[in-house]
């Protein structure tokens, strides 16, 4: 008997109701919802600053109202890291909804312990340098320390504990994406925490599942001639059918759009991966270079031969900090002498901004080089130039002043210059800078609590 895991969310805002056809069709034994991209916690922090009872994804309300009743009735556990910065708040909210819906006996588990924002000084005092993983810079030398979020990537263990205690829904903060999917496998099969090949295989299954549509034909260059635009809206989200030894078949929700082929699996396998021989997660280091793919049927790709190595000593910790603000303005320039007019526009801007603490300015030409930079050739005598100007400052007021000063030049600028009205009216956008670092495993204690109806 295989154990089947469905994936119904790949980012905050994804179509979580994709879980319903999985449940109604009897296609899955557990469903995971992965909601946290690198920036998502910073977005949730903004919500929480406005309302301390929030800080978790709004998707959780929808999952509780629409998916939980049907999943609970069939004893299919739901697992999500959409608790974000406030998994307890999310747990309480779900408990209330479950109570309103009369789901008597429903057990909600909350996993926390990932949030170390209040402990950064203590961690340093305890010998954690919190050096930037990309640059090596010690945290003490960070230019500013306005930390907005600080969350450690937890592994699967606390979720396994919750599932083995009979939880119907598990809500966590920052758990590493593929570990969400590994957890129900470990809970079901009882894999040991040193069975590295099995754990690694579960991680590969999780990695293939965690971006939902991306393995069933979404964001897929290989699928460009096989998926109609009208079919993209309603892709059948992926399911892994996992054997006791960890090998699995990747497939999708039957009767819905999309497809699973060796090509879609290869695309997702390498998505956001660095060294494929050493894919580091809190629970195991997975080696993708030993695996084999086999196309065993329509929408069925078998994955076997994954190997694993012992888990890392340290856990990843992502700190986010407020680094300043940015604004965007979009100007339109037409023929003749578009490049000359662009130079005039630039000159006008620099003069207008003299004395203001503007930090960075970037110009790009939409439709010409805004995506591909110097890979793109610039035309000699363009008919149109759409100039996107991005600029930053330490504070939002400076950016407001900068825009106002430019408006003064509205009738004094280059011939035929236009500006996009929507960009003038925008608010400044906070620049949230990521500081990736590591922290000792012994400094982090995951916690599991239960909320029962």
């Amino acid at each position, binding site marked *: 008997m295989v154990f089947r895991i469905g994936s119904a969310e790949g980012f905050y805002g994804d179509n979580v109701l994709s879980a319903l056809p999985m449940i109604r069709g009897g296609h899955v034994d557990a469903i995971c919802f992965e909601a946290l991209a690198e920036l998502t916690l910073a977005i949730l922090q903004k919500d929480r600053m406005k309302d301390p009872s929030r800080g978790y994804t709004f998707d959780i309300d929808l999952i509780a109202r629409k998916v939980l009743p049907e999943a609970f009735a069939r004893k299919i556990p739901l697992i999500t890291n959409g608790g974000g910065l406030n998994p307890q708040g999310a747990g309480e909210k779900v408990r209330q909804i479950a109570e309103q819906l009369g789901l008597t006996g429903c057990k909600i588990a909350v996993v926390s312990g990932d949030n170390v924002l209040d402990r950064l000084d203590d961690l340093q005092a305890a010998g954690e340098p919190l050096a930037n993983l990309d640059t090596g810079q010690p945290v003490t030398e960070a230019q500013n320390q306005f930390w907005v979020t600080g969350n450690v990537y937890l592994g699967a263990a606390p979720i396994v504990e919750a599932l083995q205690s009979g939880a119907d829904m598990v809500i966590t903060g920052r758990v590493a994406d593929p570990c969400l999917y590994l957890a129900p496998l470990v809970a079901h099969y009882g894999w040991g925490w040193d069975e590295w090949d099995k754990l690694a295989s579960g991680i590969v299954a999780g990695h293939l599942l965690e971006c939902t549509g991306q393995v069933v034909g979404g964001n897929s260059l290989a699928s460009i001639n096989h998926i109609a635009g009208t079919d993209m809206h309603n892709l059948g989200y992926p399911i892994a059918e996992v054997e006791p030894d960890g090998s699995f078949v990747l497939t999708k929700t039957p009767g819905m759009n999309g497809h699973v082929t060796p090509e879609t699996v290869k695309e997702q396998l390498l998505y956001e991966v660095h060294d494929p021989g050493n894919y580091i997660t809190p629970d195991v280091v997975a080696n993708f*270079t030993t695996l084999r793919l086999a196309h065993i049927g329509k929408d069925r790709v078998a994955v076997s031969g994954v190997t694993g190595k012992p888990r890392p000593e340290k856990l990843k910790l992502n700190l986010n900090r407020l680094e300043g603000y940015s604004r965007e303005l979009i100007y339109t320039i037409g023929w003749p002498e578009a490049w000359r007019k662009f130079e005039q526009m630039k000159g006008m801007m620099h003069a207008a901004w003299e004395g203001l603490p503007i930090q960075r300015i970037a110009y790009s030409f939409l439709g010409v080089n805004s*995506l591909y930079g110097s890979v793109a050739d610039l035309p000699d005598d363009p008919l149109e130039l759409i100039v996107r100007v991005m600029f930053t400052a330490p504070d939002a007021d400076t950016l407001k002043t900068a825009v106002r000063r430019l408006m003064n030049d509205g009738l004094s600028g280059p011939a035929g210059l236009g500006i996009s009205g929507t960009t003038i009216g925008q608010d400044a956008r906070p620049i949230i800078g990521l500081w990736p670092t590591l922290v000792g495993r012994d400094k982090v204690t995951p916690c599991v609590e239960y909320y029962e109806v």
Partner: protein
Amino acid sequence: MPKRLYDLAYGRAGDKGNIANISVIARTPAAYRDIKAHLTAERVKTHLGDLVQGEVVRYEMDNIEALNFVCYEALDGGGTRSLRIDGLGKALAGALLAMEWESA
């Protein structure tokens, strides 16, 4: 029309902070031999020009006939720091696959 890398391969870009990775997945075994022999990290770095400020590291996956290029300092700071319209580098695979290609 000159031949492009896209004729031999497809791929996808992903982001982690300021690091982008671009997979280049061969369409045929012959195409894999060709790109494995000739699509070096240096060549990728040169082609991507000002998009990638840091180094490019290449990984090989013979088992799925694919290469993976990890490009450091490739997203103008990454996340909301990036002033690019495509701050997550979603289109970067296309930038690489546009490379003109002459098969050996």
